[in-house]
């Protein structure tokens, strides 16, 4: 099976985080720009040595460079002061992005901003004085497009995809409801692999081939800025990739429409708009975690139901706290849908499908976010009693079954509104199946009324309470033995705010892949402004593959418990067990210090590696979840990071090309 439910390894970047991300970007990229400025200053001084008639530099540029060096000197002084034991409050730059920015952070960000501005000045000057012209860029882009078409690169791509379309169904087997997931996964994977190869080849070989064949001589001797050649190549190849993607996407959609089955249609052929809550636990050892079942992938935490032998043990709850529920939900009539897809972990040996398919039974309680757990239990009990009384009364007065059902429904809604909670027991949960529960809209109207009566506020020592909380607990499993546990993660349960068409979502996923292509193309073209075609291709590949494992590398680089490569080598050589502490000696101290330096460099390396996984949206599309346009979606999580890498690439390409002697054989 290719996909098992909707999961995200990291939270997408939100609008609220953009400012912090910008500061981070300025610090990282600004440091690189400052290094470039240092290199430029040295080269300039060497070049100007002994030359008459020095070229006048832009005073603004000189001012910015001076400020950059001054600010970095101040940051250096902070570190020096700390090394000398001088402490002046909380001013050191923070390594934890979640913490508040310190004076050191601001100094670094300001220095970075000035460095970025200094390196951007010549480019901005070229733009301002009209040296860079779209007319020429478009002409060069058209040339690149024609060249690629002439080489029939797209025909090759189409041929490979045609083979996939023809024979994929022979090899793809999946459960009926997973069919669309599988199709989307295979389509996206194939498109990605083929087009990434194409992007790297086009980007890496375009300019070097021009230089090698000397064709570029006929262009740079026209009134063409060298950077226009870079942009022309980039945009031309973007157009080729876009055309290819458009055709393949249309064919992929046709392929999907042609063969989708009913179950898959129901499961994934949509774009759900979910509203997520924050997950925490009650009745477990830790508030932020459930039970650990020993799985390597600790994405889900587990809760268990009451064991027959210890019925009075405290109950375990997975609780989703919704800070804000969309206002329009309260205006709806009828039931408000919530969907979930949980993992069921078996502690007893059975055939996989027997218990997984049978599932376990859970209770879902929707309650006012301000209510504590004990109060919720009391109100559930009160509501249950009142419900029984009202139902009994209804049975006496109403003979018609339909009217009785209608009255029962009314009672549910009245009680939900009265008590500010709604509880439903015995909901069957099946392993990795998307299922639905509903809560009456009256509950949400009540929450809104409460909010307008007394708005929720943070109290000293605690944060603002959520608007709604949903408690999930295990009643019993089908075997009645508590041998199954319920695995939950934040995104496993959500309020289904709306459902949008699959088609648009599929195209949004394609846009994600397109972003990947643009990024890898940008990297390859940038490399090709200085390196040969083959080397550019290898560098692009070298940057791409670590980009698929950024989360893992970051985890390793930030890990304080695991040893680095030298420590690991030492352990292997000595046969020392992994968990045992190393013996204390100068050699081991040296190894540990080297590993610290290695980790530091690894973290620096990560700042220049794009996280390519963020553009992989097949998880959303295949599972039928809407990809947001703006917040936590295409704009904030895809486009902004893309620009964050493309802008440095463009600046680097500008300088590499500007200072390159086109006709120099060395």
């Amino acid at each position: 099976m290719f996909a098992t439910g909707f999961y995200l390894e990291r939270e997408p970047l939100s609008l609220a985080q953009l400012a912090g991300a910008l500061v981070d970007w300025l610090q990282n990229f600004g440091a690189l720009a400052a290094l470039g400025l240092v290199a430029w200053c040295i080269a300039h001084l060497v070049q100007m040595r002994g030359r008459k008639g020095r070229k006048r530099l832009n005073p603004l540029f000189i001012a910015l460079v001076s400020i950059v060096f001054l600010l970095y000197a101040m940051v250096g002084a902070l570190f020096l002061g700390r090394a000398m034991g001088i402490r002046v409050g909380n001013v050191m730059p923070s390594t934890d992005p979640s913490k508040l920015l310190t004076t050191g952070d601001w100094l670094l960000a300001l220095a970075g901003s000035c460095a970025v501005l200094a390196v951007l000045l010549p480019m901005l000057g070229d733009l301002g004085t009209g040296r860079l012209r779209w007319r020429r860029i478009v002409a060069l882009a058209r040339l690149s497009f024609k060249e690629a078409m002439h080489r029939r690169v797209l025909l090759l791509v189409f041929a490979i995809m045609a083979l996939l379309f023809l024979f994929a169904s022979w090899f793809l087997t999946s459960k009926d409801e997973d069919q669309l997931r599988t199709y989307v996964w295979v389509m996206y994977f194939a498109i990605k692999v083929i087009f990434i190869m194409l992007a790297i080849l086009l980007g890496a070989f375009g300019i070097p081939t021009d230089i090698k064949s000397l064709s570029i001589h006929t262009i740079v001797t026209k009134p063409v800025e060298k950077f226009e050649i870079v942009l022309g190549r980039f945009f031309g190849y973007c157009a080729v990739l876009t055309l290819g993607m458009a055709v393949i996407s249309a064919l992929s959609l046709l392929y999907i429409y042609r063969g989708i089955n009913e179950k898959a249609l129901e499961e994934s052929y949509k774009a759900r708009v979910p509203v997520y809550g924050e997950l925490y636990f009650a009745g477990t050892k830790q508030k932020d975690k459930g039970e650990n079942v020993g799985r390597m992938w600790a994405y889900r935490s587990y809760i268990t139901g009451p064991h027959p032998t210890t019925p009075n043990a405290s109950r375990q709850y997975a609780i989703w706290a919704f800070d804000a529920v969309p206002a329009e939900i309260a205006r709806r009539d009828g039931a408000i849908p919530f969907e979930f897809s949980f993992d069921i972990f078996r502690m007893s040996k059975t055939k996989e499908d027997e218990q997984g398919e049978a599932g376990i039974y859970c209770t879902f309680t929707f309650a006012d976010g301000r209510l504590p757990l004990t109060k919720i239990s009391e109100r559930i009990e009160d509501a249950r009693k009142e419900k029984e009384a009202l139902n009994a009364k209804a049975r006496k007065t109403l003979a018609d079954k339909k009217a009785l059902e209608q009255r029962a429904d009314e009672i549910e809604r009245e009680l939900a509104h009265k008590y500010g909670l709604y509880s439903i027991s015995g909901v069957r949960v099946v392993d990795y199946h998307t299922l639905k529960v509903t809560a009456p809209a009256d509950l949400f109207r009540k929450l809104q009324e409460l909010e307008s009566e007394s708005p929720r506020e943070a109290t000293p020592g605690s944060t603002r309470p959520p608007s709604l909380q949903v408690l999930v607990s295990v009643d019993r499993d089908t075997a009645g033995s508590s041998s199954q546990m319920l695995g939950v993660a934040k995104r496993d349960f959500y309020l289904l705010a709306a459902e949008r068409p699959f088609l648009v979502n599929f195209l949004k996923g394609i846009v994600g892949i397109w972003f990947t292509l643009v990024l890898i193309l940008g990297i390859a073209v940038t490399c090709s402004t200085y390196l040969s075609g083959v080397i550019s291709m290898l560098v692009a590949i070298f940057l791409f593959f670590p980009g698929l494992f950024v989360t893992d590398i970051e985890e390793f680089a930030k890990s304080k418990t695991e040893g680095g490569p030298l420590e690991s080598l030492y352990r292997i050589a000595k046969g020392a067990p992994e968990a045992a502490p190393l013996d204390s000696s100068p050699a081991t101290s040296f190894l540990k210090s080297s590993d610290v330096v290695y980790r530091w460099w690894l973290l620096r390396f990560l700042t220049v590696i794009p996280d390519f996984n963020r553009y992989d949206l097949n998880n959303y599309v295949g599972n039928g979840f809407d990809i947001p346009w703006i917040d936590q979606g295409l704009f904030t999580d895809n486009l902004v990071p893309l620009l964050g890498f493309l802008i440095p690439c463009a600046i680097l390409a500008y300088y590499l090309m500007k200072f390159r002697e086109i006709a120099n054989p060395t």
Partner: protein
Amino acid sequence: MAGNEVVVETRKLTKIYRDFWGRQKKVALRALNLQVFRGEIFGLLGPNGSGKTTTIKLLLGLLFPTDGDALVFNQSAAEVKKNERIGYLPEESYLYRFLNAEETLDFYGRLFKIDAGTRRAKTQELIEMVGLSADKKRILKEYSKGMRQRIGLAQALINDPELVILDEPTSGLDPLGTRWMKDLIVRLRDQGKTVIMCSHRLEDVQDICDRVAILNEGELQELGSVRGLLEDVQRLELRASGVQLNDVLKRDLDEVLARHGGVIEFIGHPVTTLEDLFLRIVAQSKAHPGRRYQPERDGKERDGKDRDGKDRDGKDRDGKDRLPAARSPEVKDASTHIKK
């Protein structure tokens, strides 16, 4: 004709090639001082590796000077804006082979600020000028070298440049193409354009250049007008018509020269150049298609002598010209170069 306005100037222009580590590999050009004036054809001569192409590349901004200055239209050669007034034909016509002639000129035209209508008109005009009207829809990959050189020249002229820089413009061209190219260069000069060309083919340079610079090992060896450099004031050349060479004439001339302290070094009928001969043959062949060479009928071989060993000088037995004279008057006779 050449004026006093300096179009190109180099001041102590030096280029040293270095390797990746900055170590000196070769001094390609050493302190070159040159001035090229508006409206002249300026030739750069020199053996391989003498610095001709390096000079051109420095003027075009394809290379950066190690020292000194290269100025074009009084602007630094690194300035891109100057390229609006320059046309450049590289040694090989390195054009995009997947484009046809029209597309090629259209592409290069788009790099200048030329509106679409003018660009289309200019494209057709240049294609016609370089004689590629019949082949304008064929991609350049299918072109012969001569055709590529022609379209290369057309792209260099797309912006109606004031300065045309030609690197080995006649390289790889057949005699017809060479003549066409030379005529065109002269025509460009006559239109007031400045032409800088470098070539290995000395006869081409001699034919059309007003001034030349001779480089060797990156150093300027000689600079001046072609006539000034080639004129040999120690010798005298006399041409006459309406008279056949015989012993009496030879003796009389000898006596006259002896009275003035001179001596005959060579006397004889002028010999045409092979280029002229070739051009005449082709021209006549076009006018009257079909095979002309018939040794059985003519009874002689084309070695310049009859079977009796008498010089033919391109005439039939009846003494009439076989081929129409198509030689331009400024081309010198081969006899001036022959020494006894």
